[in-house]
């Protein structure tokens, strides 16, 4: 256990880094979008849709959603790992959580690329 390496199997460091990377992505996006919305001030449907139809905003918004759902995956998975001890139940909750989050990701993509 002493000779742990970064590239070894599942020590949790990867998750720890991803949790922080996705957090930074979401934080930057949030500040950026507040600024964009305060500047553009989209009041009508056309203006609101126009903001998200913009290629860069669309990409960044999708990146935000992917970060959000990956961030949520790590957070919720850790809750199951900490508090749900029966293996079968824990596995079911993991599968359910992952399924829902993958579904949300596809849904977000569908919403954005319909524009």
């Amino acid at each position, binding site marked *: 256990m002493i000779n742990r390496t970064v590239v070894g199997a599942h020590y949790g460091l990867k998750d720890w880094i991803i949790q*922080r990377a996705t*957090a*930074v992505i979401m*934080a930057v996006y*949030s500040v950026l979008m507040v600024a964009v919305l305060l500047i553009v001030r989209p009041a009508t*449907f056309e203006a*609101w*849709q126009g903001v*998200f139809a913009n290629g860069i905003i669309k990409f960044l918004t999708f990146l935000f959603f992917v970060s959000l759902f990956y961030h949520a995956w790590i957070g919720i998975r850790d809750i199951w790992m900490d508090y749900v001890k029966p293996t079968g139940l824990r596995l079911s909750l993991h599968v359910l959580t992952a399924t829902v989050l993958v579904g*949300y990701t596809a*849904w*977000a993509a569908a*919403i954005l690329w*319909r*524009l």
Partner: protein
Amino acid sequence: MLWLFSASLTSVESFATFKSVFATLPAKIVMAGLIWAFIHHFCAGIRFLLLDLHVGIEKEASRKSAAVVLAVSIPLTLIFWGILL
């Protein structure tokens, strides 16, 4: 939330639905709660990132920053609530 986001972007009619949902008092209260949850998580997250960098890792400083998170996130929530709703 994704459903609301979708409604707001799909068509003029669904945008009107989205707006009418937001105009109700229960929706405004739920949104206030969600905005607070988001902003608190945002501020606390920045605190944890700083702690990861060993900024303010001492007991006294970390106690103070925890209070700052609360003191900043609640007024910020009220400001956003005022702007949005």
